[in-house]
């Protein structure tokens, strides 16, 4: 285990410190690079660093603070970017050999908005290949280790994004969540991770996995910091037709309003067999704290929950098989040498460039979309997706928020599930539901196991009600700090 109580300030503290000239952005960036230098050989959260760019940006922020200029929302905040998002000038591997050495010629909208808000971008973060995985062991560049226990996984697919926060290497990171890839690693690493509503944050510049499910969201050490970052990256983008024109509220404004008289639903299906006893106890303690803070706790049912993982793996793989068709060795990325026909070049480049899990998902997705199976699998899954979504829409007529464990267990050991894809897929059992329904959520730390492993609570709210997830999350965080 490495030291996880980081010396880094929160976004708010940094902002105040910069304005009062008691902290400098350069100093904060330097302390992040020091942590990276001392710990990242073990943790392996970063795949690429931009020391020069970070130092330059930090100096600009310090000069602005020195001159008494108004500082932008994320002035001087050292930030890491999951390597499935593009940042011009830096590599974007998506954790895959097929994109080794690729340098994208443009910057993702979410990343651009962070830059414009004064963030100091440190580099690109390790992840499962094409964001496919729940342990970060599917990265072609080697796994990330959990800073709380280095023989354990950090979760996935945004493992590097979660571990970098837990290890004090960054104050903010961006991740992506298709079936749980922000919430589950946040839970495993004891940090806060946000799943914004589908369409809330632009996907432009995100290397696509499953376009109807993919979302970009922030990680940070505190709920308030994630709320600040979401406020910066959210909002319509003409470059993403699925990005929403819904106005972006001030997420920090009502964050301390508490949960008095808030109706919180506890879905029975999430407290069934397979839930680790310590996770259950920690989440139940958190629910008790919410009740004590004035929330009305209501048992509810989301009856189609058990069909979510099967549904997810049909829809996500079908979309992935189409999205990953673009990796063909022609325009960018890896091309296998020696093939003498175009068709052989495609096949050999893809065979050599993709790892086992990506191939498995391309195969499954191609199979469920192929003639004769489309109705039985893909259409069926789309129908069950509607039933799952209706479960949530009905529940949100009765309750304002839903609270569940984020993952059925704390972080598992490296190697424990790599040979059994089904058991790995079940690590997402509590997160894929919200992914399919497009609703928003957050994972906040709510306890630790006897072995000191973090346990996360998932808070889900209806479409575009991120503000309530932050409010409930802040209440849990305040209870934990007592």
């Amino acid at each position: 285990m490495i030291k996880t109580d980081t010396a880094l300030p929160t976004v708010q503290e940094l902002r105040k410190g910069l304005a009062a000239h008691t902290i400098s952005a350069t100093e904060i960036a330097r302390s992040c690079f020091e942590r990276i230098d001392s710990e990242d050989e073990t943790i392996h959260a970063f795949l690429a660093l931009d020391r020069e760019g970070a130092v330059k940006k930090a100096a600009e922020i310090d000069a602005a603070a020195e001159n008494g200029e108004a500082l932008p929302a994320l002035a001087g905040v050292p930030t890491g970017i999951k390597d499935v998002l593009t940042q011009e000038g830096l590599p974007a591997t998506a954790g895959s050999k097929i994109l080794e050495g690729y340098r994208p010629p443009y910057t993702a909208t979410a990343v651009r908005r962070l830059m414009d808000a004064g963030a100091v971008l440190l580099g690109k973060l390790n992840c499962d290949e094409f964001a496919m995985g729940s342990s970060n062991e599917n990265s072609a560049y080697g796994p990330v280790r959990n800073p709380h226990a280095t023989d354990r996984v950090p979760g996935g697919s945004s493992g590097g994004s979660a571990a970098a926060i837990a290890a004090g290497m960054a104050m903010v990171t961006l991740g992506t969540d298709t079936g749980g890839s922000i919430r589950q690693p946040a839970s495993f690493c004891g940090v806060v991770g946000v799943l914004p509503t589908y369409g809330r944050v632009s996907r432009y510049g995100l290397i696509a996995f499953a376009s109807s499910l993919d979302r970009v969201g922030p990680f940070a050490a505190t709920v308030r910091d994630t709320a600040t970052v979401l406020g910066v990256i959210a909002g319509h983008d003409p470059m993403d037709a699925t990005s929403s024109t819904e106005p972006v509220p001030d997420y920090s404004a009502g964050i301390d309003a508490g949960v008095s008289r808030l109706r919180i639903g506890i879905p029975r299906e999430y407290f069934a067999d397979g839930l680790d006893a310590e996770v259950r106890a920690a989440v139940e303690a958190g629910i008790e704290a919410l009740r004590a803070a004035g929330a009305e706790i209501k048992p509810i049912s989301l009856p189609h929950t058990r069909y979510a993982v099967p549904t997810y793996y049909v829809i996500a793989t079908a979309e992935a098989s189409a999205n990953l068709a673009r990796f063909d060795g022609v325009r960018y990325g890896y091309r296998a040498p020696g093939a003498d026909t175009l068709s052989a070049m495609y096949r050999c480049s893809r065979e050599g460039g993709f790892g086992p899990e990506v191939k498995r998902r391309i195969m499954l997705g191609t199979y469920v979309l192929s003639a004769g199976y489309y109705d039985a699998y893909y259409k069926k899954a789309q129908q069950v997706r509607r039933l799952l979504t209706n479960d949530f829409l009905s529940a949100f007529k009765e309750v304002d928020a839903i609270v569940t464990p984020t993952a059925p267990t704390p972080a598992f050991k490296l190697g424990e599930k790599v040979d059994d894809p089904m058991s790995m897929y079940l690590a997402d059992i509590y997160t894929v539901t919200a992914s399919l329904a497009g609703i928003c959520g957050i994972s906040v730390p709510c306890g630790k196991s006897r072995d000191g492993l973090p346990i996360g609570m998932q808070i889900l709210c209806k479409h575009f009600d991120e503000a309530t997830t932050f409010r409930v999350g802040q209440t849990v965080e305040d209870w934990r700090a007592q």
Partner: protein
Amino acid sequence: MRIYNEPLTAMSKEHKKTERVAAEDVKRVAELAYLELTAQEEVHMQRDLNAILDYVAQMNELDTSVVEPMAQVAEVLGGISGDLRTDIPHPSLPRDQVMAEAPETDGTFFKVPKVIER
């Protein structure tokens, strides 16, 4: 606080082991997906696909005959704009920047091995 006391089975524990995907299906799907699997990969792939599809078959417990398929969450949201942007030409990425990433190029075109096999 303890909300639920009685155990509830959320997941079916037993899945029928059926061979939905045969060895020739693996070859056919790999061809469609432009993957050149090794013989060993084919064996593993057949095993894994069958295990996953057995699990996926749980969906068949549900009668969905009157349920409309849902491809995109946008259709249940009012908030996402269905408006398409105006079709105005914008400059594309500069050719030299794009070609800089190509595995093989003459500067103007992407070069590939021969397309037509004789």
